[in-house]
């Protein structure tokens, strides 16, 4: 199948190095401590953060740091064919783990000992790159909850189809079976916290593809930072002196 036309356009009309349109909104869940909605094109994800709060299961309490938990789920209506998925299937357990590890790496957990932070992410519309979108939404929600973090963590995916590196794969490109690299990145520290790849790539091409994903992460980080700053300013001036 042809994923990049001779004119250099992808199936949805983007250039190979072009990202889908992103949109973020803070404060979607009223009762949560922090919440956010994140959209990348047609992929839409909602995240809610509760905590730091008292540990629910005393045996899990850690005395010198916070316990971070994460739950990923997909709404039944998120995909093209409506399917009733059992909760806790292998795919969502794996993604929950990935998100938890990524977020735990940047939260300053030692500042909140003997407490627990719960992150709930749900996919409302799935069009490829849900993993990345979930991480971005979780970052925003954590920032909204006022949880101290080392750095923003943002995520973006890239792939390699028709011998072209492609940024931010959508569902059709994702299911083509080519290599799909998801990167989680700390822009200020210039460090990678998450790297996943399906299928295989030669090392020199892999470096290009990964670099492309990192550039995507940086672009998302800039956008997220703007959103957060705007939100902080709003809250501050509304409250007044």
């Amino acid at each position, binding site marked *: 199948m042809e994923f990049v036309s001779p004119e250099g356009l992808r199936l949805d009309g983007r250039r190979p190095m072009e990202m889908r349109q992103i949109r973020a*909104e*803070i*404060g979607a869940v*009223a009762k949560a*401590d*922090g919440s956010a909605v994140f959209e990348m094109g047609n992929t839409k994800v909602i995240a809610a953060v509760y*905590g*730091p*709060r*008292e540990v629910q299961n005393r045996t899990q309490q850690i005395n010198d740091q*916070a316990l971070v938990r994460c739950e990923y789920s997909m709404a039944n209506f998120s995909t093209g064919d409506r399917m009733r998925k059992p909760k806790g299937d292998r795919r969502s357990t794996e993604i929950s783990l990935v998100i938890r590890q990524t977020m735990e790496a940047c939260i*300053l957990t030692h500042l*909140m000992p*003997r*407490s627990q932070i719960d992150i709930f992410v749900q996919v409302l519309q799935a069009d490829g790159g849900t993993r990345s979108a979930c991480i971005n939404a979780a970052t925003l929600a954590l*920032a*909204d*909850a*006022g*949880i*101290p*973090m*080392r*750095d*923003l963590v943002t995520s973006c995916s890239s792939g390699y189809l028709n011998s072209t590196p492609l940024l931010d794969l959508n569902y059709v490109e994702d299911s083509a079976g080519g290599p799909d690299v998801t990167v989680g990145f700390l*822009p*200020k*520290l210039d460090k990678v916290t998450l790297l996943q790849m399906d299928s295989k790539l030669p090392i020199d091409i892999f470096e290009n593809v990964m670099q492309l994903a990192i550039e995507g992460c940086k672009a998302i980080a800039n956008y997220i*930072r703007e*959103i*957060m*700053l*705007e*939100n*902080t*300013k*709003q*809250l*501050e*001036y*509304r*409250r*007044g*002196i």
Partner: protein
Amino acid sequence: MREIELSLNQTQKIRLKRALEKLESFSSKANSNSNASVSISDSIPVNLEDGVLKGHGTLDLNGELVATLCGVVERVNKLVYVRALRARYKPEVGDIVVGRVSEVAQKRWRLDIHYSQDAVLMLSSMNLPDGIQAYQVRESLYPLGCSLVGGGLCRPNHPGRIPTKNSLDYLIHDSGGWGHVSKVYSLGIGPKGLALVRFHVIKSRRRTALDELNMRSIFEENDVICAEVRGIQHDGLHLQARSQKYGKLERGQLLTVPPYLVRRRKQHFHHLEQYGVDLILGCNGFIWVGEHVEAKDDMVEDQVSKPEQQKFNKNSISLEDQEQTYTPIETRQNICRIANAVRVLSILGFNITIEVIMDTMNLSSSLNLDIHEMLGSEFCVLVAEGEAERRSLTKRKG
């Protein structure tokens, strides 16, 4: 950007937008350089040569000061810290908080106060109704500006605090000595320019196993309680309730607002006489609106000198209690009106103070609005416009 969750029509949208823009212009004029907003991983401009103390919400990254929170940069002398908005409550000693009992454990209650852990209220840091064994009235001279610690010790490390009746909160401490200071009266200036102070010292009865068994008769799970933050001990945050004004809250509503909207002030207990309502603005963002309860004066004389009378009263108490559980409809309406005023302010994200609450309430009654209409979009827009007007007035004065 956080949107205000209301269903507004077009004109209301524009009016709200205009009011908020007005508010924005005031705050940006007032503190254009001192209060800079930052988001996570933004670097904070500091002069490292001057020596900087990094406070909460900051991190040293290769010699650069970086924010770890979204918030406002505050500078106090050399200290630089980031004040987070919309975070959970951070307790400070002496804060008045409202909480809900989540668990009755050994010799303690665990309270949910919107902190990262449950707070602990020990049985021993409560004044039990019959727990007072003896008390003394003492008089002494203290230098002006000192503060008193239980047992009549004088500690001169809090300048600017003249012991007066108002500093009662501050004076109640665990003494480890004879007892706890309960009431303080300033009698004026004595010889040598020292302040003459009279205070009561209460010696409490030792808590027995029986008291422990009866803990549920004092507070049960899900009871709402008002207390004061005592400090952080090794096993968590401790509260105390050593006065009659603290304790169980009944016949009213508990509201939760983001804690950053409640400022620490001298007075957190408000008795609104014209409405017969008590309002407690807890520093942790839990706000209590309830029927006014006459604080049973814990004047110890009554309990010690009139034991017979108390016994005599016991039979009539049940009748009295029955009468007390009834709240008149007007009071109920007032409670709801005040509660809705707080809700509107919290939706709009405005500072919650007694003055603003009263203004909002008066606005609603002057417009002859029903209580339920206060949560409608029209009233929210009116409150936003009123707030813009109010701030512009204070600006002109200042």
